[in-house]
C-alpha cells in the first residue's frame, strides 16, 4: 500500500519535474480527472471486458489443464502435442489478427478465445510438470491398490499437482486480462481495450490511462479471487501470498 502511494507520488513528481508531456505520460491527477469525468460511460466497456476476461480465464484454465493432463498422460501424446503448443504460443497473436477476424469475427466470444489463446500455455506446462512431480512411492501406492491409470491421475497425481496448477492460474489470470485487451485491439466495438486504442490514437492519453487503471483494477480483482480460491481449494498447500 505504502509502495503504491509512494509510486504515485514519484509518478506525479516525475511528470511535474521532468516536464513530461501529458499525451505521453499524463500525471496521476490528469488520469484521475479523466477517470472520474462523468462524460465517460465506463460501465458498458467495463462489463464487456470483464466478461471477456472471465471467459478467457475459464477457457484457458479448462483447456490448459486438459492439455496438461494429456501431455503427462502419455509420452507419445506429449511429443506430438508439445511442439505444436509451443508453436501456437510463440506465434505473435497480433500478427495473425487477420486470421482471427476471418475465423472468429469480432465480438465478445472471439476476444475470449484470443485471451484464452494468450493465457493457456502456463496452465499446460505447469499442469504437466506438476503431474510428473509426484513421489514414486505415491504412485506405487495407487498401483498396489490396483487403481486404473486414470484414477491414479484423478486421486493422486492431480491433487498433488494442485499447487502447480494454482500457480499457473495466477499467471493466467493476468494473461487473460492482457489477452482480452489484445483481442479488443485486434477487433472490437466496445471494451476497455477499445477505449485505450481509440483514445490513444487521438492522443487523449489521460483517458487511455484511465482505461488502463480499470484494466489494472479488474486484473488485481481477478488475481485476488484466484489467490483466495486457491487458498480455499488447497489449504494444505499454504502459499506465502
Amino acid at each position, binding site marked *: 500500500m505504502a509502495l503504491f502511494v509512494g509510486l504515485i507520488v514519484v509518478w506525479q513528481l516525475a511528470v511535474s519535474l521532468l516536464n513530461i508531456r501529458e499525451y505521453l505520460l499524463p500525471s496521476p491527477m490528469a488520469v484521475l480527472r479523466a477517470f472520474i469525468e462523468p462524460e465517460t460511460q465506463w460501465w458498458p466497456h467495463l462489463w464487456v471486458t470483464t466478461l471477456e476476461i472471465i471467459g478467457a480465464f475459464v477457457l484457458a484454465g479448462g483447456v490448459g489443464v486438459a492439455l496438461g493432463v494429456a501431455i503427462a498422460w502419455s509420452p507419445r501424446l506429449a511429443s506430438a502435442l508439445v511442439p505444436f503448443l509451443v508453436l501456437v504460443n510463440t506465434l505473435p497473436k497480433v500478427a495473425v489478427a487477420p486470421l482471427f477476424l476471418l475465423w472468429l469475427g469480432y465480438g465478445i466470444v472471439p476476444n475470449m478465445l484470443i485471451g484464452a489463446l494468450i493465457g493457456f500455455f502456463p496452465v499446460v506446462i505447469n499442469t504437466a510438470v506438476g503431474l510428473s512431480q509426484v513421489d514414486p512411492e505415491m504412485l506405487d501406492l495407487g498401483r*498396489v491398490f*490396483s487403481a486404473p491409470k486414470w484414477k491414479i491421475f484423478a486421486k493422486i497425481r492431480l491433487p498433488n499437482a494442485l499447487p502447480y496448477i494454482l500457480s499457473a492460474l495466477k499467471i493466467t489470470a493476468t494473461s487473460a486480462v492482457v489477452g482480452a485487451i489484445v483481442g479488443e485491439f485486434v477487433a472490437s466495438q466496445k471494451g476497455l481495450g477499445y477505449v485505450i486504442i481509440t483514445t490513444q490514437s487521438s492522443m487523449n492519453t489521460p483517458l487511455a490511462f484511465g482505461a488502463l487503471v480499470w484494466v489494472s483494477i479488474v486484473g488485481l480483482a481477478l488475481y485476488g479471487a484466484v489467490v483466495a480460491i486457491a487458498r480455499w481449494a488447497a489449504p494444505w*498447500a499454504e502459499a506465502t501470498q
Partner: protein
Amino acid sequence: MTYAADSGPVEALSGIDLKVGRGEFVSLVGPSGCGKSTLLRIIAGLRPATRGSVRVAGRPVTRPIADVGMVFQAPILLKWRSILDNVLLPAELAGKDAGRYRDRAQHLLQTVGLGEFAAKLPRELSGGMQQRASLCRALLLDPPLLLMDEPFGALDAMTRDEMNLELLRIWGETGNAARKTVLFVTHSISEAVFLSDRIVVMTPRPGRIAAVRTVDLPRPRTVEVRASAAFGQLSLEIFRTLTGS
C-alpha cells in the same frame, strides 16, 4: 534383482527361491539394506524382477496384482486428505463406493487408537500414529494377501504387542474364516517368532535366503507362549543365523 543407477548398478537380491502357502504367515528378517522391501515390491508386481519370476495364486506376476494389502515402510499418506479419507483411499481407487466403507474405516482407526484423529490431516499426527493409519488403509478392503514392510517399526513396545495380537486376529488365527496369506518384514526377531508360521532369514546385500525356520509354537499365540522356553530358544537360533554366529 539389480537396480540400475547412474552411479552404478546395485544388486539387491540374488537367487531367492521361496514358496508361501495360502493362509501362511511368513516373516522376513535380515539386515538393513538386504532387499526386504525390494522383495515385497517385486511380489506385489510394483517392480519387475531382473531375473526369475514370481507367481501369486498360480498366476505369474507381470504387473501390480489385485487383492493385496500393502503396508509400505514409510506411511505415504496423502497430505491433502484427512486420516479417514486416507484410509478410504483403496476403496475409491478400486472403484468401490467409499461411503459403504466409512464405518469399517472408522472402526479400524478405533482399533489402532486413532478414533479421535479421523478428521485430522496426516501432518498433525506423530510418526507412530501415521504408521498405524497406513495399516488401517491396507486392511480396509480385507484383502486375502498382506504384504507388510515393518508395519510396527515406529511403535512403542506396548502398542506393538497390542497390534501384534490384533494382526493375528485379523489374519484369522482364531475363528474358522479362511486365513490370509501374510508376508511380514520386521527387525524384531521376537515379533517374527511370535507371529509367524515360518521365518525367512536373509543375508546382507545382495540378499539371499540364509535359512527358513518353521515356528512350531502352538496357536493361538499368547503372552504365555512368548514367555515359553521354546520361544526363547527359537529367537536365539534365529539371532544366531542372522549374525552368522
